[in-house]
Structure formats: C-alpha cells, structure tokens
C-alpha cells in the first residue's frame, strides 16, 4: 500500500501506483491531465507549470490522487536532494579546461534550459546535466574525458 501523503510539496515526485489503475476511479479532466504527466521524474511544481495549475489546484489534485491510492511517492525532494553550489565551481573548472572561458556561460545556459540554477539544482538531475554539457564538447574523446573527470564528483551524490 503506498504511503498516504497529505502535505503536498512542489519538490515531491510521484509515479503511478502499479497496483491500481486510474480507470478504477472517477477522475475529472484536470486529474487525468496530472496522471498523464506522471513519469517518476517531474516534480509536482513542474507538473503545475506544464498544466498552468495554481498551487491550491495542484495540491488538491495530488492529495486526492494519493488518498485514492492511485499514485506513489518517489521522493520528497527538499534541501537534502539539492546539489551544493560548491559542486558547480568544480564543474565549471572541469568544463573550462576543455571549452575555455565560455564554459561558465554554457553551463548557465544549460541550467536555464533545465529551468534550474546553481543554487537550486536537484541531485536526481545530475546525470542529464552532465550529458547535456558533454554534448557541448565537439571532440568525442574529450566528451568522455569530461564525463570521466566529473563522474567521481557526482557519484558521491547519487550513491550516498
């Protein structure tokens, strides 16, 4: 039985409960829209943005879906799941070695594309960030070199 979540936070991530189909419940149009966004990756806040829902609307919908056991909490989010801003200094340094002085601008562009920033970056998004940054490096050998250099740093976040 999934954990009943009464207090919904924007950093939380949910996925569909495999043991109960949403078709077993009577859902409104907006509730179906939320269900269709659940992928175990998007936060409550991102889903609210995607569907242009107010804070009250998104909280009510997630609370209802949780009470009906239709969704399962993947992670609560919060400060524990954020990357330290110090990490970005190291990342920027590694990128500068390969890309030169534009590295910091590229890093901020990619973060902006991910709707994030150096102060508020979720640990769970580190692998995709590294992948997007590696794509910015033209030389495939240097792409791998960058990934090899930075992996030990992100590893301690991902497997703590």
């Amino acid at each position, binding site marked *: 039985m999934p954990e009943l979540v009464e207090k919904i936070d924007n950093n939380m991530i949910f996925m569909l409960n495999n043991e109960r189909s949403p078709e077993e419940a009577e859902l409104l149009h907006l509730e179906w829209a939320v269900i269709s966004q659940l*992928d175990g*990756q998007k936060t409550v806040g991102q889903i609210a943005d995607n569907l242009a829902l107010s804070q009250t609307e998104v909280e009510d919908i997630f609370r209802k879906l949780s009470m009906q056991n239709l969704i399962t909490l993947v992670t609560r989010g919060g400060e524990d799941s954020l990357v330290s801003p110090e990490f970005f200094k190291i990342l920027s340094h590694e990128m500068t070695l390969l890309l030169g002085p534009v590295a910091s601008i590229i890093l901020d562009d990619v973060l902006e594309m991910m709707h994030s920033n150096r102060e508020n970056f979720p640990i769970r998004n580190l*692998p995709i960030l590294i992948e997007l940054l590696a794509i910015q490096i033209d030389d495939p050998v240097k792409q791998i070199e960058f990934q090899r250099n930075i*992996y030990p740093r992100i590893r301690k976040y991902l497997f703590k």
Partner: protein
Amino acid sequence: MIINEFLQDLTKIPNMQAIAVYGVNNNLLDSWTVYDSHLQKLNEISLHYFQIFSILHAKGKNFKEVLISHDNGQIYALILPDLLFIILTKLPTDISLIRLIINVSVSEILSSRNVQKLLKKTREKHLNFFDKKYLDESEKELLKKIGI
C-alpha cells in the same frame, strides 16, 4: 567479472533488474540479475534484441541505442564498437545515468587484460541469430517478407 569489477554502480541504481554484456560476436561476456529467476528472461530478451539489431543492420540502419517499454519497466540496449549492453529496469530509472556509467567505464573494461583474453577466446565463435534454430515459424515468415 566485468560487471563486478567495472560496472558495480550500475547494479546500485534503484530499480535495476538485470544487466548483460555481450562481445562483438554476440557472445555473452557477463551478466547480473537481482533475482536468479530473471536470468532466463534476460537471455530470451537479449536474443530478441539481437534479432532486432540484426534486421536493422541488414537494412542498413545502425542504431546505437534502443529503449522499449516493457510491463512496468523498460529494456535498454546500448551498442558500442566492441561491446553491447542489454539492461532491464523497473520504472522510474534514469537512462542518462546508465549511459554515463557505461561511458566512463568502457575504456577501462576494454583495456583490462582479463577482458582482452575473454574477447580473444570468444572472437572465433560468431553467433548468427538468423540461424533457423533461433527462429519460430512466424519469425521465419516475417524475415522472408522483409527480404532477409
């Protein structure tokens, strides 16, 4: 040996179910499963993947990656010049993390003396998955239809 020595982090990813590493001649080099009972399933799925890749290759379409949804999970295959990885996971799993771990490990794997010995040993044994013994009647018919 390969997974234990070089790809331990893959096995630590939440929801990881099974990993298989194949050499260029379609020979299994190493595998890992959460439950022993998954090994047979992994072998069957891998066989289907090899058949899919062989068809794509025969049609001149060389895919480097394939990701397919499967029950409550997904099957991911990554083809590198010397190795092929087939990975089964439950959802949610971050494919970019799997790709990253493989990318950072592959040169170490290929430069390992033990792995080189293993690759050399299996080099002469090429497995052709279009061989009739691997195909049922409907698959044979399908291959005939698409001209393979």
